[in-house]
C-alpha cells in the first residue's frame, strides 16, 4: 500500500500541480578506498553509477555527497570538481553518498506533457470506436491511474500496484480542486495551482486513503 504522488495536467497539456506524497527515500552512505570500484558517468549534469552494482548502490543511482558535502552537477558545493577528487588517490578514504535521483521540477513538467500525447494516441489506436485514453498504466513497482474530466483536465495518481480504490480517490481530488482551487478568486484557470488550502486538504485526503487503502469515505 502506498500513494507516491499526485499530478494534475491542464487541458492544454501543461503540468499545473504536482505533489509528492510518500516517495521512499533511498540513500546509502559508504566509505570507499582507492581505487573506486564503481564506474561513474556524467549524465544530465549528474554523476550516476553506470556499472558496478553492489550492496545498496544500484546502477542508475547518483552521487549525492562526498564526505558529507553535497554534490551539484559535477561540482561540490565548495567549488571542487567531484571527478578530480575521486581520481586523486591522496583524497581517500572517501565517504560517498549515493541515492536514487530526484526528479527536478523541469523533468516533471516534461514527463507530464509526455503523458498527454500518449493518452491521445491510446484512444486513437483503440480497435473500438469512442475509446477513452489511458486510464491505468501498470508497472511492476507502481500503478498510474488517470481520470480525465469532461472539461479535459487530467488527474493522475501514482501508487503502489496493489492499491485499490484509486478511481474514487481521483474523484475526491477533483472535488477538492473544484472547491479549493476554482473557488479561490485569486486562482486563474490553466495556471499552476498554488493554493495552500488545496494542499492541506489534499494531504488530509491522501493520508486517509493511504491508511484505509481505499478512496476514503
Amino acid at each position, binding site marked *: 500500500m502506498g500513494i507516491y504522488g499526485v499530478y494534475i495536467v491542464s487541458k492544454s497539456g501543461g503540468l499545473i500541480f504536482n505533489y509528492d506524497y510518500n516517495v521512499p527515500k533511498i540513500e546509502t552512505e559508504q566509505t570507499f578506498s582507492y581505487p573506486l570500484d564503481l564506474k561513474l558517468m556524467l549524465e544530465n549534469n549528474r554523476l550516476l553509477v553506470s556499472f558496478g552494482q553492489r550492496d545498496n548502490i544500484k546502477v542508475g543511482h547518483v552521487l549525492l555527497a562526498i564526505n558529507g558535502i553535497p554534490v551539484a552537477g559535477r561540482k561540490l558545493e565548495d567549488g571542487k570538481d567531484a571527478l578530480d577528487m575521486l581520481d586523486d588517490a591522496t583524497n581517500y578514504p572517501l565517504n560517498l553518498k549515493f541515492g536514487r535521483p530526484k526528479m527536478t521540477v523541469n523533468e516533471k513538467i516534461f514527463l507530464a506533457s509526455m503523458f498527454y500525447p500518449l493518452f491521445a494516441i491510446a484512444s486513437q489506436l483503440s480497435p473500438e470506436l469512442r475509446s477513452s485514453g489511458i486510464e491505468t498504466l501498470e508497472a511492476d513497482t507502481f500503478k498510474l491511474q488517470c481520470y480525465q474530466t469532461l472539461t479535459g483536465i487530467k488527474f493522475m495518481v501514482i501508487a503502489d500496484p496493489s492499491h485499490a480504490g484509486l478511481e474514487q480517490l481521483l474523484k475526491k481530488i477533483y472535488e477538492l480542486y*473544484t472547491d479549493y482551487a476554482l473557488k479561490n478568486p485569486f486562482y486563474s484557470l490553466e495556471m499552476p495551482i498554488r493554493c495552500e488550502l488545496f494542499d492541506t486538504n489534499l494531504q488530509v485526503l491522501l493520508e486517509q486513503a493511504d491508511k484505509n487503502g481505499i478512496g476514503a469515505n
Partner: protein
Amino acid sequence: MSRQSTRLDVKKVNSELFTLTYGAIVSQLMKDYENVEDVNKQLDRMGYNIGVRMVEDFLARTNSARCNDLRETADKIQYAFKMYLGITPALTNWSAAGDEFSLTFDSNPLTEFVELPDNYQNLKYSNVLCGALRGSCEMVQMDVSCWFAQDQLKGDLATELRIKFNKRLEDAIPAGED
C-alpha cells in the same frame, strides 16, 4: 468519518443574502458604468467567468456523463438550477429542430426584492445567468446562446430564459472523449 468536502456539500446559505449581494453588485455596476448596455455586458462577462468554474463543481458533484443530445443538457441545466439556486425551472418551447428551448421560472431568486426604475428598462438585470450558462456549456464543448425572452421585471407574466445550441466545439473536445 466526516470530511471537509462532505461538509461543504450540505452547506446551505440563505437565498436572501445571495439576492442582496447580487443586487449590490448590479447597483454598483450601474454607478460605475452609468450606461445600461455596458452593465449588461459586464454582467454577462462576470457570469461567464463564474460559469467556467462552476461547471467543474457541478461535474465533480454529480458524476455527469457527456451529453449527446440537447434534451439531456436541458435536464442537467434544470438540475443545476435546483442545485445552485434552489429552483426548478420548467423546460418549455422546444423548437422543432430540437436545438432551442426555454427555461421558464415562476420566480427568479435574483430579482426577489427588485423593481426596475423607468429609466433602466433596458437593463438585463439577471444577465449573469446567461453568461454563466454560456460559460459552463463552453467548458463542456458546446457553443450556446442565451437570452431573456421574457422578464417579470419588465412586466411579463413569467421569466423565460431562451437557450439556443449553436454547435459542438469539436476541436476543443479532449482526446479520448470524442
